[in-house]
């Protein structure tokens, strides 16, 4: 048995999201016979992938007690770069996009660390800058992503294809890194109490650099997944991801105040959000209701987990 420790606590924080995801599956399966059709399941995995990647990057930042509002713009930029360069560069477009994501993360980190700008404001500013660049590159949805990418990545039409493999591999790595390495422990320590972390020898700046870079990298990876899926670029497509990624993390038990939450919760939260959207589609409800539902879920999740935090503070 795992001794009671931050690892176990953070694992348990993801349980409500897992239960919610299971409940949505049950409801959807009962009401709509199409839910377990192979096509729908594969489609679900493909939709979970970009959200889960973005939410994971965001979670690293949240664990450290910061926030990144630029993830959506980074996704848009990633699709724009991919759609304008993949024909000429081929596979080299992938590392180019990832590098762009890292650059965005570096911009966030530089503002927060060197200029001491509040992360909320700095990443909001970065979001505007990055979106502007995406618009300059690709003023309207379009461009073209090499079909070869799609064929290889989404083409097999299998449940256990590349998208699922990527999710499993990335989350397993993140789980080990956060739960079993000193680097991971330092991230939580920083989010838990910055002054105490510093007094315990945590290099605060280094941890901040790492989490913003990781967030930029993961958002760019999510953007690649989106770009390949739609076979084009769209300078606005990432917008909804910013709130969705935070919502997925919060739903998965991640504290916005830092120091608490685990990656399995983040994955469960992402799955739950995608499932809810999917259920709305299958039940043929008004898509605008979906927006309202998402917002409400976010608020309810915040309330539930904040009550725990308030109890702790008392």
């Amino acid at each position, binding site marked *: 048995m*795992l*001794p009671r*420790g931050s690892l176990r606590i953070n694992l348990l924080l993801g349980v409500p999201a897992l239960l919610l995801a299971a409940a949505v599956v049950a409801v959807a399966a009962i009401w709509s016979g199409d839910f377990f059709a192979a096509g729908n399941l594969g489609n679900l995995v493909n939709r979970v992938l970009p959200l889960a990647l973005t939410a994971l990057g965001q979670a690293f930042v949240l664990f450290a007690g910061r926030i990144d509002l630029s993830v959506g713009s980074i996704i848009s930029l990633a699709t724009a770069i991919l759609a304008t360069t993949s024909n000429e560069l081929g596979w080299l477009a992938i590392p180019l996009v990832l590098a762009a994501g890292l650059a965005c993360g570096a911009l966030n980190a530089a503002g927060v660390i060197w200029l001491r700008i509040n992360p909320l404001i700095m990443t909001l500013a970065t979001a505007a800058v990055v979106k502007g660049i995406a618009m300059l590159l690709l003023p309207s949805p379009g461009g073209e992503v090499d079909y070869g990418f799609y064929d290889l990545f989404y083409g097999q039409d299998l449940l256990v294809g590349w998208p699922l493999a990527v999710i499993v591999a990335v989350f397993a790595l993140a789980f080990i890194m956060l739960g*079993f390495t000193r680097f991971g422990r330092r991230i*939580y320590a920083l989010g*838990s*109490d910055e002054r105490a972390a510093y*007094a315990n020898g945590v290099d605060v700046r280094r941890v901040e650099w790492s989490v913003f870079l990781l967030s930029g990298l993961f958002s760019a990876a999510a953007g690649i997944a989106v770009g390949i899926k739609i076979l084009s670029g769209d300078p606005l497509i990432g917008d909804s991801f910013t709130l969705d990624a935070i919502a997925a993390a919060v739903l998965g038990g991640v504290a916005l105040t830092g120091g608490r939450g685990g990656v399995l919760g983040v994955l469960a939260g992402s799955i739950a959000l995608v499932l809810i959207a999917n259920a709305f589609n299958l039940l043929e409800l008004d898509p605008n209701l979906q927006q309202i539902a998402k917002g409400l879920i976010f608020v309810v999740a915040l309330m539930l987990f904040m009550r725990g935090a308030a109890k702790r503070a008392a």
Partner: protein
Amino acid sequence: MTKPASPQSPDSAAALPRLAVSGVSKSFGSNLVLRDVSFSVRAGEVVSLVGENGAGKSTLMHICAGTFPPDGGTLMLDGAAYRPASPRAASKAGVALALQETAILPDLTVAENLFFGDEPRGLLGLMSQKRLHWDAEALLADLGFALKADRLGAELSAAERQMLEIARAVRQKPRLLILDEPTASLSSHETDLVLKAMDRIKQGGGSVIFISHRLDEVMQAADHAVVLKDGMLTLDAVRGGFTRDDLIRAMVGRTLTDIFPPRPASFTDKPVRLALEGAVAPGLKPLTLAVRAGEIIGFAGLEGQGQRPLARALSGIAPFTGGTIAIDDKATPISSVSRGIAAGIASIPDDRKHEGLALDLPVRMNVSLFALSRKSRWGWLRQQLEQTFAEEARRRFAIRTTGIEQPVRQLSGGNQQKVVFARWLAETPKVLVLYEPTKGVDVGAKTEIYRLVGELSAQGVAVILISADMLELIGLSDRIHVLFEGAVTGTLERSDFSEEAIMRLAAGPEGVLGHAA
């Protein structure tokens, strides 16, 4: 851990001090906190650093532990120049600091806090949760600390946090262990365990510097005492070369009778000003209390035993939730700060930076905050009145400043506190609540504050003094109530005042029984 933990060859150890501090100075803003401090610590020695609040002890220890560098002077560790750039660098050099305001990570368990940054690793170099847990339990059992390894940092009491902090420092087997008021929140049993832990470090060839306000403890444990007063060294003597009275004289700079105002013998003929009947607040058990006009009632206790809830309830910040409160025989629920002010309660908060002052505003605006609302007309501020008022306050409270337009941030701690007093005492209150009124205040300002409190009490103000400073409680109070876990466990009359008597009551009912047995 790397090499520093191992003792060096005997011949060099005999010659070189473990830590040599020479000519260290430090100031924050215009506030000179340490001036030209020199002393040394030998290997295997326990040095007690004594001084009043604000004397510069913590600053000195933070310099030794790498939190910030000195402005001038040098440090040598075992004969080598020692300039730690950060707490981590100090820890690598073998210097561990257990803080007074503890650095426990709230979302990690005791075990995880204990081994933070030095976690045992298992397979593939990954951290092993199980080994971490076992090692922590073994260490705690070995020290005799009653702490469960799997509790979260956020769940620990002040005393438990302190014990964890000490266990963590001991674990690092430091060359030099610095303990900043390790026993402030501990009962006598726990204090004994801490003194034992210090002994262990000593046996292993390590040195200890410990800061304490409890002179009994200093007399018991220190091989060597160093006293700071207003940032300067006033005593440096080895065991046998100093007495308790020497320490007090060196701390305060004069004998105690000169500092504290004389107290009348009896108050029985005075009317009851403040009466509490079964008053409760979160963290405070039903409290019944009668304070007569002019009386100064002290509240003592270990840290976190209900002092804060009491101060906040009396001031209306976090009001009483039950019971009755009467001022001058009139039922007066203090349901908010503004009601409290209207009822004649003036309350000096312990945290003047957050609850008291607008640091970047001038003295003028800070002192006239409440007075102004009374003196304004139809919501318009009256500049002339404000200026006259501020000038008067500056004279009456002896606030040392370049002028009433100087921002409060630039004043020393003592003068900032006088600004807080000036604001609250624009009109004479009925009840004055003092919560750690001289925290971070130099002796000169302290004396002035005590004189002021004495004057107010002579005018019939009922004073509640909640403090951790034993000398202050004993010197100023007419009666002392001792708090333990939110309840008054004992009351001492002036004739029975002693540090020992307070400490015995502060340990709670069990501690009392333990002593009786």
